[in-house]
């Protein structure tokens, strides 16, 4: 029942705003698997990109609850077929014999992953792509033994000329 949607928040860059958002996620029991915060390109504002797992009703509850946080100015689902999403992964896998080594190199090159470090017993790759491409890469590399990995979380923008900060304000809010 995986139904993952990406939500973008446009928030006031205040101390504590991340805590307000995560505390709400936790106490309302929303199920998220990625959250990133970055400058929004507008002075005093940040952008949060959150991937949530839930049905349409849960997603609309999520948006409506988020809009009750005073520092959250906009909250929108990014339409699945009309966005650009990407994330970066650095992943360290075990290398064993020569055959596996070659398999791993050929696999990772098909994901445009670059080999960035070679250890005595490990290979470290860096790759970027859509969240699902990264998920697939991780699944594939899992067969060889993942030693550790770090993902940046998702960066996503709606395609075309849309601009979140200029989107009409949801009016479920007082201020």
């Amino acid at each position, binding site marked *: 029942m995986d139904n993952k949607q990406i939500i973008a928040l446009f928030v006031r860059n205040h101390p504590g705003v991340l805590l*307000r958002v995560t505390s709400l996620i936790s106490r309302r029991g929303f199920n998220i698997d990625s959250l990133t915060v970055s400058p929004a390109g507008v002075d005093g504002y940040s952008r949060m990109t959150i991937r949530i797992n839930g049905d349409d009703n849960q997603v609309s509850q999520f948006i409506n609850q988020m809009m009750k946080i005073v520092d959250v100015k906009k909250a929108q689902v990014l339409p699945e077929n009309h966005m650009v999403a990407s994330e970066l992964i650095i992943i360290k896998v075990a290398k064993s014999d020569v055959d596996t080594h070659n398999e791993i190199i050929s696999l990772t090159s098909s994901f445009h992953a670059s080999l960035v470090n070679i250890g005595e017993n490990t290979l470290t790759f860096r790759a970027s792509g859509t969240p699902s491409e990264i998920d697939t890469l991780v699944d594939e590399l899992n067969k060889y033994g993942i030693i550790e990995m770090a993902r940046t979380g998702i960066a996503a923008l709606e395609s075309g000329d849309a601009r979140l900060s200029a989107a009409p304000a949801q009016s*479920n*809010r007082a201020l």
Partner: protein
Amino acid sequence: MKLNGSEIIAECLIEQKVDTVFGYPGGAVLNIYDALYKYSDKITHILSSHEQGASHAADGYARVTGKCGVVIATSGPGATNLVTGLATAMMDSIPVVAITGNVSNDLLARDSFQEVDICGITMPITKHNFIVKHVRQLAPVIRKAFRIAMSGRKGPVLIDITKDVTSAVYDFEPAIPEAPVMPLESTDEEFKSAAAAIKNSKRPVIYMGGGVVSSDAEKQLLEFAEKIDCPVASSVMGLGGFPASHRLFTGTIGMHGGYETGKAIDNADLIIACGARFSDRVAGDRDKFGKSATIIQLDIDKAEINKNVQIDYALIGDLKDTLRKLTDESEAATHDAWVAQVQEWGKNSEVSQTPDSDSYAHPYHVIETVQKYMSAEDIVVTDVGQHQMWVSQKYKFENPRTWCTSGGLGTMGYGMGAAIGAKIAFPDKKVVLFSGDGSFHMNLNELATVRSYSLPIVIIVMNNTVLGMVRQWQKLFYGSRFSQTDPHRKTDFVKLAEAFGVKGMRIHNDGEAESVIKAAFECGEPVVIDCLINPDENVLPMIPPGKTVDDMITEME
């Protein structure tokens, strides 16, 4: 003009037309209290016995006036003592601004004496909170706090102010407060669709909640209900928002609501929720609630739509506006047979009571006797438990803002503070607090406040010597294993009252009720009435948690 931070606070309060604040002094708010001394001709400060009492007083003041309540407390324990009061206000959407002092900037984040991160602590129980670390932010933050508290769905806002800010000098420019924001979101088409659903309905029911009171929408609701000739059921929070004496009023809905209301909701083909949120205490089994009905929900808070129960038509905006528009769009109708049917069910809603006795008074009899001495504008406050439910069932509320009870959070100990807040707001109205011996024990220290300010509140302690509501659940669902609900307390409430300088009286049985209650109202002083209730008196009817009207319990051994 140049003012220090504490004077800026006072000026901002005056700007917001605040003339009464509740609170308790302490180290971190010394400067603020110095300013309150200076401004004492413009701002009356009511000193409680404990910050929790002050927070409930600000809440009670807000409920009866419709204005924003204000409470002040010091850092550390002063601030944490506000937590229950803020959570109570949050759950019932009551506008309160809490001002707490904190340690100075140079001592922050060092575990200094009486330092606590009250913003972190209160984040989930306030609409918003602020920490002010620079005096230039002070006036804008206070103005914003009041606007947030009063806008949209109302609620508490906390402002934490470091001590150095309260003494720092800065320019202050007076400003006219900006009006609260009440967005109207729904389109004309949405009102038309909802009106069409109303037109098609043969068996509509209005389910009203605290939003009617919060929005001051009682006139619009009355007009709407009469135009479409629709029975009106109220949540506990909504009481007073529709006259109890009206032929269309069915009483409270939910766990201890009447049989007729439960049957009406169960048989309705349309439920119109007005400022109500389908809480578990109302909806019971939320998947079965109104299962055969179309549901229209009018609310200011979009996040309430589809939260507990799936809604067919949502109308988002201030209830005054949405009800007015919906009334205009709706055709006048009559539902004589349906209204008669609901009234007929009402005849079956008698519940069993314990037999007459010389050693006990009946709660209903006491409530009805009190009501005889109250006008429709006088104010009833309760604590939480059986007595609260008995009052919600029996007392006939005719007007909004005459009823203070902790509906959402269910805060035992709420009543003393709230009654003080209500009486301070309206010295000329009678204020009665119904409490229980359990709840009263929690915050009876506020009797000192009642005496200090000579507040002639009549406090009726329904004393059954047990923690009755929890005990009732143990009787029903835990094989009568009365774990910790029979505390064997030996408190003599009459002597206790006298020790505080308050009159103490006692009602032993129904026969004494009238004369004691009459004397209590006539003496014009604070009174505690110890009213002896049978420990086995139950709150009935009762729909067990998560069940429906078909599972209603109407008698117990």
